[in-house]
C-alpha cells in the first residue's frame, strides 16, 4: 500500500469548535423550543391567535353592525348579498355577530381568569409562605368554598344581580379562585424550602422580595398551565349561563347567546345555530389542546 501525500490533509485548528459550552438558554426559551416542535400545540396556538385577531378586526371593518336589522333580508342562507354566513330571523348579519360574540366570550373568559389569577396568587402565596396555623385555616376555607358547587352559586348570584357582562365575570370570580389558590400554595410550599430561597433569606431579603423575586418566577410555569386550563371552563360557564337565560343581555351577544337564540329557528335554518356552535367548539377545542400540550411541556409529572 502506498501512502500518497494527498491522503494527509492538515486539519486547520479552530479553537472555537473545541468549546464544549452551549449557549445558555432560559427556562422560557426552553419551553418555547419544545413548544415549537409540538404540532398540536402550535396548531392550537395559531387558531387561538387567529380567533383573537378576527374578533378584534372583523367587527370594525365589516359594513354591518351587530344589531342592525334588515327585515327585507331575513333568514338568508350563506353567501347571499354580501352576508358571508347569511342573516338571522331579524335580518342581522351573522358573520359580524359571530365574531362579535367570540369577542364578548373571550373578554368574559380572560377577565374572569385574570381576576382568579390575582386573588388566587395572593391568597395561595400568603397561605403557602406563612405556613403553619395560618395555612391550615386558610386551606380549610378553600376546602369549604371548593366543595360548594360552583355553577350553582354562580347561577344564584346571577339571579340576584342584574345579568350582564360584568356580573358574569364577578360571579365566576367569587368562586373560581380556589383552584389557583391551591396550585400556588402547593408551589410556594415546595419552593420556599429550596436552597436558593434560604440563601436569599440569609442575605436579608424581606418576605415581599422573596415572594416577588424568588418564588413567583419559578411558580410561573404551573400558574400558566392552570390559567390555560381554566379559560375553556370560563367560556363554558358563560355559554351555560346564556343557555338558561342568565347570560349577557341584548344588544350584546356572546357565542352562548347566539347558539341559544339560534335554537329557536334551528329546524328551519340550521346554519343559524350550526355556525356559532362550530365557532364555540373550535375555540374550546383549541384552548383545551393548547392547555394540554402546555401542561405536558411544562410539567410532565402533572400529566394525570
Amino acid at each position, binding site marked *: 500500500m502506498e501512502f500518497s501525500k494527498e491522503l494527509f490533509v492538515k486539519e486547520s485548528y479552530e479553537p472555537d469548535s473545541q468549546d464544549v459550552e452551549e449557549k445558555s438558554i432560559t427556562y422560557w426559551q426552553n419551553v418555547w423550543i419544545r413548544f415549537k416542535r409540538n404540532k398540536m400545540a402550535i396548531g392550537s396556538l395559531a387558531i387561538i391567535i387567529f380567533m383573537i385577531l378576527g374578533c378584534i378586526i372583523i367587527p370594525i371593518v365589516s359594513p354591518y353592525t351587530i344589531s342592525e336589522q334588515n327585515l327585507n333580508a331575513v333568514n338568508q342562507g350563506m353567501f347571499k348579498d354580501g352576508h358571508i354566513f347569511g342573516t338571522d330571523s331579524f335580518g342581522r348579519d351573522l358573520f359580524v355577530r359571530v365574531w362579535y360574540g367570540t369577542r364578548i366570550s373571550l373578554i368574559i373568559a380572560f377577565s374572569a381568569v385574570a381576576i382568579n389569577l390575582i386573588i388566587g396568587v395572593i391568597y395561595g402565596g400568603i397561605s403557602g409562605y406563612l405556613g403553619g396555623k395560618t395555612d391550615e385555616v386558610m386551606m380549610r376555607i378553600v376546602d369549604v368554598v371548593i366543595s360548594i358547587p360552583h355553577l350553582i352559586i354562580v347561577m344564584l348570584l346571577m339571579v340576584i344581580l342584574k345579568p350582564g357582562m360584568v356580573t358574569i365575570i364577578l360571579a365566576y370570580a367569587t368562586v373560581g379562585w380556589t383552584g389557583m389558590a391551591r396550585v400556588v400554595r402547593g408551589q410556594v410550599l415546595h419552593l420556599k424550602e429550596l436552597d436558593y430561597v434560604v440563601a436569599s433569606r440569609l442575605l436579608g431579603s424581606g418576605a415581599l422580595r422573596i415572594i416577588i423575586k424568588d418564588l413567583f418566577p419559578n411558580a410561573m410555569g404551573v400558574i400558566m398551565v392552570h390559567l390555560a386550563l381554566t379559560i*375553556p371552563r370560563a367560556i363554558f360557564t358563560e355559554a351555560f349561563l346564556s343557555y338558561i337565560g342568565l347570560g349577557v343581555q341584548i344588544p350584546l351577544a356572546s357565542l352562548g347567546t347566539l347558539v341559544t337564540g339560534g335554537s329557536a329557528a334551528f329546524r328551519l335554518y340550521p346554519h343559524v345555530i350550526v355556525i356559532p356552535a362550530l365557532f364555540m367548539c373550535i375555540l374550546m377545542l383549541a384552548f383545551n389542546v393548547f392547555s394540554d400540550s402546555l401542561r405536558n411541556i411544562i410539567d410532565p409529572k402533572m*400529566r394525570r
Partner: protein
Amino acid sequence: METFRYIMKKLIISLITLWVLVTITFFLMHMLPGDPFLGEKAISEATKEALYAKYGLDKPLVIQYLTYLGNALRGDFGESLVYSGQPVMKILMSAFPYSFELGLYSLLFAGLAGIISGIFSALHNGDKKDAIAMFIAAIGISVPSFILGSLLQYYLAIKLSNWSAVHFGYQLFAVEGWENAAQKIIPVFVLGFGELAVISRMTKASFLDVIGQDYIKTAKACGLSKFQIIKNHMLRNGIMPVITVLGPMAASILTGAFVVENIFNIPGLGKHFINSIQAQDYTMIAGTTILYGSFLIAANLLVDIAYIFIDPGIKLGKKNA
C-alpha cells in the same frame, strides 16, 4: 385511628360546607328586591301584616334565619311561589327519580365506554388508533352539552327517525320524554359523552403508568395472554385513580342534566330548576340549590372515604400538599 380521624375531618368540613351553602342561599334570597306579596292584588295593611306574621317575616332577620335553618334541616323549604300550595320538597321529590335515573345511566355509560376506550388508547399509545380515540375525547370535552343535545335531537331524533319511519315503518328515536328506550338513548348519550372523555383520558394516563411496571413484565414473561394480563393485573391498579374524578363528575353530570332535561323535556330536577329561575320562583330556587348542594357534598365525601379503603397507600392528611 388515623383513618377515623381522616373521615371525621372530612365529615366536619362537609357539614360546615353545607351550613355555609344554606346560609349563603338564605341571605342571597333575602337580598332580592321586592316583596313576596307584591305581585298579588292590592292588599290592605292588615292582610299584609297577617301574611307576614303567618310566614314569620315580621320577626328579626336572625330569627328568620334560624327558623329557615331549622326547617331546612327537616327538609322543609317552604311552598313554591309559582305552584301555589305545593311544598317545594314535594315537587323536588317527585322530580328526583327522573334525574337520578338519567344521571345513573349516563354515569354507567360514561364509565364503561370511557374505561374501555382509555385502555384501548393506552395499549395503542402513540399510534393512529390512540390519536383518533384521544381526538374524540378532546371533542367530548370541548362540545358543550346544549350544542350536542340540540344537534343530535335534530339530526337523529327528527331527521333520521322520520326517515326510518317512512322507510321501515319504525321510528328509531323519540324527540322528547322519558318513558321508553327510544326516548332515553339520546339524552343518556349526550349527558355521558363529556364525562366519557374525562374518564377515558384519566384511564389512559393511569394505565400508561401501570403498563411500565415490573409485575406486568413478569406476567408477560410467564406467558399469560394479553386479555388475562389486562383483566387480572392491570385493571385493579389502573382503575384506582379514575375513582378520584367521580366526585367532580357527579357535579358536572348534575349541571349537565339541567340542559339535557330541558332540551329533551324530561320532568327532572334540572328542568324544575331552570323553570324556577326563569319564573323567579325564589323558594323553589333556594330549595333546589340546597338539595343539589347537599347531594354533591355527600358524593364528594363518599368518594373521599371510598378512596382510602380502595387504596390503603394513600397518605392521610397530606392530600392537599
